[in-house]
């Protein structure tokens, strides 16, 4: 398989990169000075693309690589891949579901606790020496708060299971109601937001869910409500969110994703009711290894003409 050309869209994991290098002819797209020339000159040898949450295979790239057979994403989200184009051309697509579900759900709860209980601010308070002068202010209890989940897929269900252990009543919104699920369903995101204390975005990013968190939803969530985003940055109308937080119309936010990563609106830096993370939802040693192995396993299966491990298309 060493002659098979694999294009890695961006740096994502040293172990994955190393293994791809060993097994295939690996091309590191981020090191290429002239990307369009590169694609033209390698159009006959690249048979696979490895992407992630930041970069995948858009229509332009797919058109430029006529020998492309498979796009393997180092993520569960597929918003950086032109799925329709892949279907049209018979290109297989794989992702990394299940292995990262727990980590992302853990982080969602971690963000809820960090925002409500002001964990980061408390830590900062101690480090600054201010504790010697006086006690930190009161925070908000997490146990028993109403949690509203947008998207009740694997990650949404895992978040619900964890929040239930804190006696949090769970409600949700998704494309269709799930009659077998005991949680309360709301047919619109605005209604869900109006009836919960903490709103979590856990759905996939599609044309329909872009800016699913808009001004109306933020208003419904309100001055005591908290938004947690472990989905994708474009789920949220970011300028609206920023002004709501700055003007204290929204109670708080825990954000792992942003519209233009790694750029983060600086107006959020000074807010003590906001916790900002650099897209680390699946960022653990254990899970990234499992994700890498899944990407490698899918590529190997494809080129050995065996069934793909986690196909999407």
């Amino acid at each position: 398989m060493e002659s098979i050309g694999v294009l890695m869209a961006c740096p994502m994991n040293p172990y994955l990169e190393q293994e791809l290098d060993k097994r295939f002819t690996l091309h590191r797209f981020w090191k290429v000075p002239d990307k369009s020339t590169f694609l033209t000159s390698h159009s006959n040898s690249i048979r696979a693309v490895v992407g992630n949450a930041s970069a995948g295979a858009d229509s332009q790239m797919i058109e430029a690589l006529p020998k492309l057979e498979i796009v393997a994403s180092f993520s569960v989200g597929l918003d950086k891949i032109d799925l329709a184009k892949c279907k049209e051309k018979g290109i297989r697509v794989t992702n990394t579901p299940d292995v990262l579900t727990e980590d992302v759900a853990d982080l969602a709860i971690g963000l809820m606790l960090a925002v409500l209980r002001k964990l980061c601010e408390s830590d900062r308070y101690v480090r600054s020496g201010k504790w010697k002068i006086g006690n930190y202010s009161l925070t908000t209890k997490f146990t028993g708060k109403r949690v509203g989940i947008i998207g009740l897929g694997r990650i949404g269900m895992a978040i619900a299971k964890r929040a239930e252990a804190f006696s949090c009543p769970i409600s949700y919104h998704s494309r269709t109601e799930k009659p077998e699920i005991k949680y309360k369903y709301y047919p619109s995101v605005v209604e869900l937001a109006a009836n919960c204390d903490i709103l979590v975005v856990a759905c996939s990013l599609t044309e329909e869910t872009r800016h699913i968190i808009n001004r109306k939803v933020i208003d419904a969530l309100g001055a005591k409500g908290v938004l947690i985003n472990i989905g994708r940055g474009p789920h949220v109308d970011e300028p609206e969110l920023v002004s709501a937080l700055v003007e204290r119309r929204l109670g708080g936010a825990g954000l792992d994703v942003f519209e233009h990563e790694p750029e983060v609106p600086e107006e959020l830096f000074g807010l003590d009711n906001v916790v900002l993370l650099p897209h680390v939802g699946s960022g653990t040693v254990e899970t990234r290894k499992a994700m890498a192995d899944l990407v490698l396993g899918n590529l190997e299966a494809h080129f050995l003409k065996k069934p793909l491990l986690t196909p999407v298309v």
Partner: protein
Amino acid sequence: MAAENQSQTSQSDLPCVLILKPPPSFALFGDHFLDSPKFQYLKAYESPLPLSQFLHTHAQSVQAILSSGGAPVTADTIRLLPRLDLVVTTSQGLNHIDLSECRCRGIAVASAGTIFSADCADSVVGLLIDVLRKISAANRYVKQGLWSSQGVYPLGYKLGGKRVGIVGLGSIGTEVAKRLEAFGCSISYNSRTKKPLAPYTFYPNVVQLAANCDALIICCALTDETHHLINKEVLSALGKDGVIINIARGPIIDEKELVRCLVKGEIRGAGLDVFEHEPDVPVELFELDNVVMSPHNAVFTWESFEDLCKLVVGNFEAFFSNEPLLSPVALDHLPQFSG
């Protein structure tokens, strides 16, 4: 004037509760936070008299004391108050009350009971996720603008599937276990006595517990036996992939040894709400990204204080109406509490 005299007369009929020093809630909510129309407070800290004289003056009127961590109830104080029948503390901890003296005198004791257990357990989980997933450290990184300039943040560690060892499976420990099970953690514990109904693995001593877990959670009371319970041997058994979380009392951990282990990388990290000499915190910890600290505020939520108010006032009102206390402490089988 007449109205004032009238209210003064009815005031003096009300039973008296002594407060030696104001509880933490007074600083937050003002000193009428725990008022009730059914009893009155005698505030020793507002009197110009030296304490012993104050106690002597009011010895016959004091039936109850409102205590808190910073206002201990010692045997000496108890002996100056012949009519004392009840001590209500605003805390869950009891190490500031001379319980054996209370037991001798037949004085009832009521605490915050289990009202803080959920908040404490939430703090434990929050600190544990923070340490493993580097939430506070990564938040600092982003807010300093380093994500766009310096790039990808180092990976954290998965919580799911980790072995959690709980020291002290009381009310707080049980709430911690219930929460962490939902994250796919396996739970084991050490307690003074094995709990036959607890579905978790029991280890007869803390060293064995530490050797068999990835996260050691301190949820026990501070007593003579638990002082420096977490020592060099325990930390060594916990090992370089182990994390420790303490929301109980600082002196349960040998702090010097803990700091040394953290600085040398002999354990993976720590989440600490309590310290040996609060509010002093070892400065070496400020250099470390794998340590998350909080200023002994694991129970300091608005909701808990509302619940506390109802409980404290409810306990006094029940007592003065000869009804059962809401959150009595059983004074038989007492361990020796550290002062």
